[in-house]
């Protein structure tokens, strides 16, 4: 009856430890390659062990989560879920911010475009910008008497009524605050003294302006009544180049916007 070779519970025989050299000799004998049954058996089993060992080591290395216990897996899953929730919240916040910025820039651009357009329109109406377009050219000469300022002012009013959008008299751009005054050698218009012949450049619909001026008893009739000579020409392109610097309003400020309705 052979004792179990792996029976570690049986203490090593303390009585007869063989001499040191004998143990090493035993090892040496065992290491000597002999084709005995024991050697082949041990070799086979060791090959099996080595194979299993390597396979298991590779398996352990390649496996990330597969051999984690369940509670560990639950913890990992929790962490991943939390992390993805955090990231999703972040993504939502950032997307909201992005769309906000997009609409913001859209709104701003629209507002800027509108403001620019309004500035252009109002610049033309207020005389701040040069303008061009279809209109009429009117030359008034004074072959005899001087033409009074009132007649000229009536002419301007008549032009405005007829829808004139930009008016220039001589080198002066005529605006809402334009005044005419009789002076010794001509007419003073907005601080500039003009002499005959008076040269009007008017941008507006010629089809409206021309009959409005020529109406019996109208503006041109008055000019002729004041001994003036008129020459009215319809033009496809009238260039009003004179501009006027507008002082910033001193007293008036924009009223706060009230919501319509």
């Amino acid at each position, binding site marked *: 009856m*052979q*004792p*179990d*070779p*792996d*029976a*570690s519970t049986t203490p*090593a*025989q303390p009585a007869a*430890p*063989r001499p*040191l050299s004998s*143990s*090493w000799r*035993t*090892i040496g004998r*065992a*290491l*000597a*390659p002999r*084709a005995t*049954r*024991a*050697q*082949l*058996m*041990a*070799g*086979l*089993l*060791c*090959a*099996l*062990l*080595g*194979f*299993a*060992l*390597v*396979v*298991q080591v*590779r*398996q*352990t290395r390649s496996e990330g989560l*597969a*051999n984690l*216990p369940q509670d560990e897996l639950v913890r990992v899953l929790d962490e991943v879920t939390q992390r993805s929730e955090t990231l999703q919240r972040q993504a939502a916040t950032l997307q909201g911010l992005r769309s906000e910025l997009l609409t913001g820039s859209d709104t701003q651009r629209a507002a800027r475009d509108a403001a620019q357009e309004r500035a252009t329109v109002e610049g033309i109406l207020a005389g701040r910008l040069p303008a061009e377009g279809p209109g009429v050219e009117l030359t008034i000469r004074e072959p005899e008497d001087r033409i009074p300022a009132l007649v000229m002012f009536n002419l301007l009013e008549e032009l405005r009524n007829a829808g004139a959008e930009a008016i220039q008299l001589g080198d002066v751009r005529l605006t809402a605050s334009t005044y005419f005054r009789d002076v010794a050698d001509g007419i003073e218009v907005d601080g500039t003294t003009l002499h005959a012949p008076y040269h009007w450049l008017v941008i507006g619909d010629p089809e409206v302006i021309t009959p409005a001026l020529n109406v019996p008893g109208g503006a041109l009739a008055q000019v002729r009544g004041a001994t003036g000579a008129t020459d009215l020409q319809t033009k496809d392109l009238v260039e009003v180049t004179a501009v006027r610097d507008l002082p910033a309003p001193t007293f008036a400020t924009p009223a706060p916007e009230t919501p319509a309705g």
Partner: protein
Amino acid sequence: MIAVLGLLIGALVGVFLEPTVPAVLQPYLPIAVVAALDALFGGLRALLDGTFNDRVFLVSFLSNVVVAALIVYLGDQLGVGTQLSTAVVVVLGIRIFSNAAAIRRHLFKA
């Protein structure tokens, strides 16, 4: 010598074949490897004791592996697989240590 060669050849075959462990065997292979290691050390000790027998080595090797796997399987069925695996590894580790101590005493008289 043949045993050492066998160990090396087995390891090389494992490295080059790169087999994947079947899912059924996955919980048992680590325990089986530890049990086989224990049998190997036991065999070495028996060799030094002068009591080595190839038949006993073979039987102890295989029975160690099978019993260890069986214990783990039983533990899995009972719901204490992790704890029982730990217990088996602890016991086998103690045995490996004591066998190693005996081998050391034989070889170095210390």
